[in-house]
């Protein structure tokens, strides 16, 4: 083994296992403490529920790599789900509904990107503002009520299988591979870490950095629209508060997955493991009869710990 291979390996050991250790530790703890955790139906349930979170966490990884943040993604998902449900119920067409959901998502994504890239508003405040807007719109278009009467073909998107594999899992795999290809094998993908790590160099290289930035946020909105299909199918309704706060789970998955908030370093596979860690944590606490409130608090502690470790790493 050459020296370079060793140093590459030790680098990997230093940066990679954090999230893997967390995931394995959580799996072990709940396998021992939570009755029924290791049963096949439960584990597949964790996997199924993680698919929606993955839809948000993947674009969130790219956004955070640009030194950005999207606090609105949960509210946009909620709004897209309500709009999707309204369109599906009134027209009976799943494609029209999906189109409307995606349009809402992309519109919010473009607005977020525009506010950040063109007006120079700090991302966390810009998206906090659009969070309020999306949350308000979800209440307004639904009049505060659940939109029910979702046809069976839409519900099958979550509960159906294709070749023995649940459809959400297939969608998640396709989406993950698409993001992997986009980030690691396209020119667009190489601009993303540069936006966070060295924006000046990108500008000097003649790249229209604002366009790339808007595209990254628009992608986040698009994924929220796609996730809205799975969410609506799972809940058989469009509810105006359905996914409020889910942005925190997504941010937690990215942070635990080892993506840095300050230097453009990101790792998609880490995010995948982070999503599973958040899913396992929620599921395990659920089996221990601890309510959602405790789950959120635990995820909060996990995030603070992950950020602390990241800060230690960045400024030795």
């Amino acid at each position: 083994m050459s020296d370079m291979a060793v140093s590459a390996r030790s680098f990997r050991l230093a940066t990679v296992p954090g999230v893997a250790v967390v995931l394995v530790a959580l799996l072990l703890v709940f396998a021992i403490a939570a009755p029924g955790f290791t049963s096949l139906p439960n584990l597949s349930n964790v996997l199924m529920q993680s698919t929606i979170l993955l839809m948000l966490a993947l674009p969130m990884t790219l956004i955070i790599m640009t030194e950005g943040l999207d606090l609105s993604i949960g509210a946009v998902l909620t709004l897209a789900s309500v709009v999707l449900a309204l369109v599906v119920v009134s027209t009976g067409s799943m494609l029209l509904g999906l189109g409307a959901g995606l349009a809402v998502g992309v519109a919010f994504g473009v607005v977020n990107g525009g506010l950040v890239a063109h007006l120079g508003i700090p991302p966390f405040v810009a998206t906090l503002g659009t969070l309020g807007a999306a949350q308000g719109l979800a209440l307004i278009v639904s009049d505060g009520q659940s939109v029910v009467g979702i046809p069976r073909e839409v519900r099958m998107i979550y509960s159906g299988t294709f070749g023995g594999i649940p459809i959400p899992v297939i969608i998640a795999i396709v989406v993950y591979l698409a993001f992997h290809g986009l980030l690691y094998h396209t020119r667009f993908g190489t601009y993303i870490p540069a936006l966070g790590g060295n924006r000046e160099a990108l500008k000097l290289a003649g790249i229209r950095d604002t366009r790339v930035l808007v595209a990254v946020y628009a992608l986040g909105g698009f994924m929220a629209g796609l996730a809205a299909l799975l969410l609506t199918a799972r809940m058989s309704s469009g509810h105006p508060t359905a996914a409020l706060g889910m942005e925190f789970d997504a941010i937690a998955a990215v942070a635990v997955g080892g993506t840095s908030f300050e230097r453009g370093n990101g790792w998609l596979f880490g995010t995948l493991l982070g999503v599973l860690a958040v899913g396992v944590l929620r599921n395990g606490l659920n089996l221990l009869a601890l309510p959602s409130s405790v789950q959120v608090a635990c995820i909060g502690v996990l995030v603070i710990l992950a950020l602390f470790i990241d800060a230690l790493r960045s400024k030795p």
Partner: protein
Amino acid sequence: MSTLDIRRPAPAFAVSQDLVRLAYRLLAAGLICLALSLTTDAFLSFANIINVLRQASLLFFMASGLTLVILTGGLDLSIGANIALSACLAATVMKATGSPWLGGLVGLGTGTLVGLVNGVLVTSLRIPAFIATYGTMWIIHGLTYYYMAGETIHGFPPEFRALGSGYLWGVPVPVFLMVVFLAIGSIFTQRTTYGQQIYAIGANPVAAHLSGIPVMKRLVLVYAISGAMAGLASLVFLARLNSAEGDIGDSLTLPAIAAALIGGASLFGGVGTVSGTLIGALILTLVLNGMNILGVSANWQPLVTGAIVIFAVWIDIKTGGRSSEKA
């Protein structure tokens, strides 16, 4: 154009510039009042004016503490969750002991403690402020919901409820407190060394550190003050509602940020005044009150508040010449 980017020039000039900023905002508030009194009958009633001032005072308590944090270039997203936790713990203690003083002490103490934790996360653990306080927000939120388990605590001693609904020399107590804290806040920021150090940290943290300002200590102080003011707001809120629930703070953070930003505080640090924040709180309350009187559904409030936040930051960038993409 000078190469030095000093947003806070010599004191004499700064005062007059602050006054100009203040005058514009007062004018805006006046115009909203004028429009509302012309278009509605309900606005210009004594009861409604008192109502506006009461609501603005609550917003001011949250936003004034937050203003100090924003002055240092930070942000506190945990205010709403902090208020809920402080109010619920204060309510529990008051119910158990019957003592409004003990309850008040617990409310203020809880708020301050949460602020201190934020301060330590931001300074000692070097976590970016917005994400650190975002994390604590969810932790506190979860703890409060778990602790309350959907229950409501209500019915407090009358001497405590006076904090929300009583009068002192003909002035509602919260409004009276608002004036007191406006004076304290203005003197603290404009006339004390601590206050000037806070401005200096926001304008240029490195220069502040090099000129011997204990940056870490001052940062912990501003987060603690923000927490303490959230504790105070929780008590006034509790006294007015006469009941505590786990979700009372859920929708308070965005308006608090909006009030500070409308008031002229800059997210990029070093610019803003406590008196500006008072005007900001008044303007936001007037807008929301006006929508209410005009029969606009409360569902529109988060949308309007969100839009106002973005607009306020955009104005700041336009007039201050800074943006998040600092070179």
